[in-house]
C-alpha cells in the first residue's frame, strides 16, 4: 500500500507543479502581449503624427546619377557629339495637386510658350510614373534666379542642371551619327529585354538612330547612385552616401568629317548619297545622304512644326539614302558583270562582239544608248564606252543563276551589316527571289527575257549605295572583302583601353589576279578616255571608275531627252570609283537622284572627293555639267 502510494504522490506532486508552471507561463504570455500592445499604442497613438510625417515626407530615396554619355569623334579627333550642361525647369506631376494651375502660375514667373506646354503634354502621356518632366529647357541665369525667389509657391517644381547632347556640326553626317531622344514606352521594353532597366533609372534619353542607337550601351555608361533624405517638397535634405557614375565609352570613327562636309557640299541642293570606304579596312570615310537634317532638333523632344517640316518634305530628309535607298545600279553594274564573265570563263578579254545598236531576243529589241552601235567591241571597250549590247549578250550567255551566284558573293542584295540599324537588303534578282517576292504562280516564273536587262544593271536589280561601295572596294582590294563600318575603335572610359573594330576581312574571294587587273585597267580607261574622262581631266593621280544611269521612268521606246522630262522623273546618276588605281586608298559609290547621266552629275562629285582626300585640295578644273558622252 505504501509502496503504491509513493509514486502516486510523486505523480500528483509533479502534476500540481506542472499546473503551477503552466499558470506562470500563462501570466508571462499575458505580460508579453501587454508589452506588445503598449509598444503598439506608443507607435500608433502617441507617436502616430511623427511616423505619419516620416512615412509621407521623410523618405530615404535612392537618386540615380546619370553618367555622362560617351563622346563621338571622327578619325582626326574632331568632336561630332558631346554634352553640355544647362538648366531646365521640371515638374514632377505626382507631387503636384493641380497641374494646370501650376503651369499657369509658372507662366507668370518665367516665360512658358504654348509649344512648351504642348511638348510637356506629350511627354506626360509617354512618361513613366514619378518622373520629373521638363516644362522649360535652357533657362537663362536670370530666369533661374527669378524662379528661385518664387519657388516656395511651386511645390513639385524644381530647377535642375542637366546634361544635354549636342551635335556641334549640326546636319553634317547626321545620318551616320544619328540622334538621341527621350525614352518612350517601346524603348523601355527594349531596355527591359536587355536587362538594362536598373542602369537606365534616371536616364531620360536614348539613341534613336545611327551610331547613337547602335552603340547605345557603349555610350550610355554606368549609372551611379546617391542616397538622400527627401522632405515633403521633394527636396533633398542631405546626402548619405554616393556611388559615382561611370562615364560612357567614347567612339572614334573611321569617318573623316572634313571629307564628309566637302562631299555633302558637293551635292549642293541635289538629293543623293555617297559612301566612301577605305578598301584595306572597310572603314567608312564618308557616308552622305542629302538632304540632311539637324539632329539637335530631336534632343529634347522635337517640336511638332519642325517634325512636320522634316516629315512632309518631298525630299525626305529623314531617309538615309545610303543605307535605305535601293536603286538600280545601271551601267555601274558592268565591271562586276565583266569580272563574272572572266571568272566563269564565259568571255576572254580579247573576245569581240559586233554591236549593231541593239540585241534581239524573243521578238523584243533591247536597244543600245548609242544609235547605230559601237561596232566591234571587246571587254575593255565595253566598259570604257559602256556598251549595252555586249552585256545583253553576256547576260543571256551566263544565265540568271550564274549571275546571281557571283553578285551574291560580292554582297549585292544582302545587308552589309554596317554598324547602323535598319539597313535595307535591296534586290538581287533570281528565280528564287521571284518565288519569294510574288504570290501568284504566273508571276513567280522567271522569263529568260528578264535576264537580258539584268546585264546592264536594270530590271529588278536594286541595291543600296553602301552595297555598291562595298563591291567597288572589294574590286579595288583584289577580292579581299571587309564589312563596312563607321567606328574605328571604342575607348573604355575607365581603363582608356581601345577596342578596335573589325581588323579581319569578312571573306576573300578567290579571283584570278589577271582578271581583276583586266577590269581595273578598263575602269582606268573610263576615267582617262571614256565616259568619265572629262570629269577626271588633269588629275595628278590615276583613278578607276564607272559611270551609270538608272531609269526612273520607262519611256516605252520613246527617246529620252532630259530637258523634256519632269525633274522627279529624270534618271538617277551613278558613279563608282577608286583611287589611286594601283594602291587604292579610297573607293566610293555616288548616287544623284534624278541627276541624269552619271558622267554629268555623279562623276564630278567623285573627282572633288578624291582631290580632297588624296591631295587635300578642292579641284579647280572640275568638269561642267554639260557636253559629256552618254554612258
Amino acid at each position, binding site marked *: 500500500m505504501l509502496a503504491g502510494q509513493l*509514486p502516486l504522490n*510523486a*505523480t500528483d506532486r*509533479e*502534476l500540481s*507543479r*506542472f*499546473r503551477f*508552471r*503552466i*499558470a506562470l*507561463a*500563462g501570466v508571462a*504570455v*499575458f505580460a*508579453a*502581449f501587454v*508589452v*506588445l*500592445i503598449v*509598444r*503598439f*499604442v506608443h*507607435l*500608433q*497613438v502617441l*507617436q*502616430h503624427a*511623427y*511616423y*505619419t510625417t*516620416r*512615412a*509621407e515626407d521623410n*523618405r*530615404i530615396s535612392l537618386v540615380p546619377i546619370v553618367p555622362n554619355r560617351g563622346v563621338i569623334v571622327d578619325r582626326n579627333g574632331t568632336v561630332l557629339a558631346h554634352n553640355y550642361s544647362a538648366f531646365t525647369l521640371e515638374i514632377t506631376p505626382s507631387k503636384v495637386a493641380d497641374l494646370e494651375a501650376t503651369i499657369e502660375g509658372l507662366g507668370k514667373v518665367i516665360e512658358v510658350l504654348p509649344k512648351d506646354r504642348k511638348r510637356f503634354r506629350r511627354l506626360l502621356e509617354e512618361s513613366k510614373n514619378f518622373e520629373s518632366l521638363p516644362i522649360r529647357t535652357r533657362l537663362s541665369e536670370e530666369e533661374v534666379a527669378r524662379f528661385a525667389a518664387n519657388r516656395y509657391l511651386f511645390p513639385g517644381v524644381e530647377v535642375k542642371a542637366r546634361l544635354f547632347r549636342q551635335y556641334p556640326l549640326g546636319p553634317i553626317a547626321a545620318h551616320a551619327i544619328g540622334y538621341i531622344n527621350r525614352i518612350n514606352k517601346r524603348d523601355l521594353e527594349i531596355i527591359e529585354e536587355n536587362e538594362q532597366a536598373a542602369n537606365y533609372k534616371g536616364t531620360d534619353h536614348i539613341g534613336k538612330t545611327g551610331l547613337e542607337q547602335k552603340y547605345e550601351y557603349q555610350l550610355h555608361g554606368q549609372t551611379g547612385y546617391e*542616397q538622400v533624405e527627401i522632405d515633403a517638397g521633394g527636396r533633398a535634405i542631405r546626402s*548619405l*552616401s554616393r556611388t559615382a557614375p561611370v562615364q560612357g565609352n567614347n567612339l572614334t570613327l573611321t569617318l573623316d568629317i572634313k571629307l564628309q562636309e566637302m562631299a555633302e557640299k558637293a551635292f549642293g541642293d541635289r538629293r543623293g548619297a555617297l559612301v566612301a570606304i577605305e578598301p584595306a579596312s572597310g572603314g567608312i570615310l564618308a557616308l552622305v545622304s542629302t538632304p540632311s537634317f539637324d539632329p539637335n532638333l530631336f534632343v529634347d523632344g522635337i517640336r511638332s512644326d519642325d517634325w512636320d517640316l522634316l516629315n512632309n518634305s518631298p525630299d525626305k530628309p529623314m531617309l538615309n539614302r545610303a543605307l535605305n535607298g535601293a536603286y538600280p545600279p545601271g551601267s555601274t553594274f558592268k565591271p562586276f558583270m565583266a569580272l563574272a564573265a572572266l571568272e566563269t570563263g564565259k568571255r576572254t578579254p580579247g573576245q569581240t562582239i559586233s554591236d549593231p545598236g541593239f540585241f534581239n531576243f524573243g521578238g523584243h529589241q533591247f536597244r543600245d544608248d548609242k544609235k547605230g552601235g559601237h561596232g566591234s567591241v571587246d571587254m575593255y571597250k565595253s566598259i570604257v564606252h559602256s556598251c549595252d549590247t555586249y552585256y545583253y549578250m553576256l547576260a543571256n550567255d551566263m544565265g540568271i543563276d550564274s549571275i546571281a551566284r557571283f553578285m551574291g558573293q560580292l554582297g549585292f542584295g544582302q545587308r552589309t551589316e554596317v554598324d547602323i540599324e535598319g539597313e535595307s537588303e535591296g534586290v538581287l534578282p533570281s528565280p528564287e527571289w521571284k518565288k519569294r517576292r510574288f504570290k501568284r504562280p504566273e508571276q513567280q516564273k522567271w522569263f529568260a527575257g528578264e535576264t537580258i536587262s539584268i546585264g546592264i544593271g536594270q530590271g529588278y536589280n536594286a541595291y543600296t549605295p553602301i552595297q555598291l561601295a562595298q563591291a567597288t572596294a572589294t574590286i579595288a582590294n583584289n577580292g579581299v572583302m571587309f564589312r563596312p563600318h563607321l567606328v574605328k575603335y571604342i575607348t573604355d572610359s575607365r581603363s582608356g583601353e581601345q577596342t578596335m573594330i573589325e581588323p579581319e576581312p569578312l571573306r576573300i574571294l578567290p579571283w584570278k589576279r589577271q582578271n581583276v587587273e583586266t577590269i581595273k585597267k578598263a575602269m582606268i580607261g573610263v576615267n582617262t578616255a571614256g565616259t568619265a574622262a572629262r570629269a577626271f581631266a588633269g588629275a595628278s593621280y590615276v583613278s578607276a571608275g564607272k559611270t551609270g544611269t538608272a531609269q526612273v521612268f520607262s519611256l516605252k521606246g520613246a527617246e529620252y531627252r532630259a530637258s523634256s522630262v519632269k525633274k522627279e522623273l529624270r534618271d538617277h546618276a551613278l558613279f563608282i570609283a577608286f583611287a589611286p588605281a594601283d594602291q587604292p586608298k579610297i573607293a566610293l559609290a555616288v548616287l544623284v537622284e534624278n541627276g541624269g547621266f552619271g558622267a554629268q552629275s555623279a562623276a564630278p562629285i567623285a573627282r572633288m572627293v578624291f582631290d580632297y582626300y588624296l591631295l587635300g585640295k578642292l579641284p579647280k578644273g572640275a568638269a561642267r555639267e554639260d557636253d559629256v558622252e552618254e554612258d
Partner: protein
Amino acid sequence: MLPPLLHRIWVRLVEHLDGPLLLLTASIMATGLATVYSATYDASNRLLAQAVNMAVGFCAMWLVAQLPPQKLMGFGVPLYVLGVILLICVFFFGVKVNGARRWLSLGFTRIQPSEVLKIAVPLMLAWYFHKHEAMLRFRHYFFACLLLLVPFALIAKQPDLGTAILVGAAGFYVIFLAGLPWQVIFGLFAAAAAAAPFVWTMLHDYQRKRILTLIDPASDPLGAGYHIIQSTIAIGSGGTFGKGWLEGTQTHLEFIPERHTDFIFAVFSEERGLLGNSILVLLYFLLIVRGLMIAANASTLFARVMAGSVTLSLFTYVFVNMGMVSGILPVVGVPLPFMSYGGTALVTLSVGIGILMSIQTHRMLVRK
C-alpha cells in the same frame, strides 16, 4: 438529418478536431491570406500559392490529430535521431546560400532539416521525461539539456539564429514544464549573464550588427537598421484604425523589406492600425490560452509537457516576430504563425496544432 453513412463519415472527420483551436487558427489564416494578397498583388501575387500552403497545412493538422499521443510519442526517438543526422550532413555537405549553410540538396529538391527539429526536439524530450516519470533526478535534467544542446548548436552554427531560438525554446519549455528545479533555472540565468561577453565575441558579424542596430537603429539607416526603421514607420503611420486594406503606402511603395514573409505584420499593422493589431494579438492570446488549457488537463506527462511546449513555442514565434517588426527585439528570421507567406513554417505550425488536437481529443476518448 444526414443519412447514416454520411453522418458516420462526418463524425470520423471531425471527432479528433478541437473546435476552438480550429476556429482560431482558421481566423488567423484568413487574416494572413488577405494580408499576403495586399503585400504581393502589385508585384507577384502569392495569394493562390499561400492558399495551397494552407490547404496542405490543414491536411497535416488533421492527419496528426488522428494519431493518439502514445503513437506520437513513438516518433520522438526516430525523428530526433534522423533530424540530428541530417543536421550533421548539412554541416558537412550543405548547400551554402547567402553565407549560411542551411539546406541539404537531394538532387531533385532541397530540404531544411532544422525545421524537423522544431517538432522532433520537444517530442524526444517529452518522451524522455515520460519514461522517467516520478523518478526524475537532477541527472535526467542534465541529460535532457545535452539532448537539446546538440541540435541547437548545429543549427546556430549554420548560422540560423531564428530557428535555433525556436528549437531551443521548444526544448527548454519541455524541460521547464517537466519540473526543472528553480535553483537550476536561476543558476543558468546567472551563468548566461556572466557568459554574455564571451558569447558576444562568438557571434557572427551580422548578428552583432542586428543587436547593435536594435539599440540604435539610426546608426545604420541603410544597412541593418533599414528594416527596423521602415517597419516601425509603417506601424506608427498606421495609427488607430489603419490606412485601410491595400492602402499602405510603406507597403506599396516597397519600403518594407520581406513584406510578405517575416515582415508581414508591418503590412497588416499599417493597413489595420492599433485596432487590427489588438484583435490579432487577442486571437493569438486565445489560441495560446486554449493550448495551455489542453496542457493543464492532459492525462499523461508526455501529453502535458508536449502540449505546453507546442503552445509556448507558438507564443515564442508570435512574440519574437511582432517584437522584431515593432522594434523591441533584434531582427531574427522568425515568421508570424499562420500569417507569413511560406509553406514550410505553415506545415510545421499546423502539425503543432494537430498535436494539441490529438492530445485533447484522445484524452476525452479515454475518459469516456
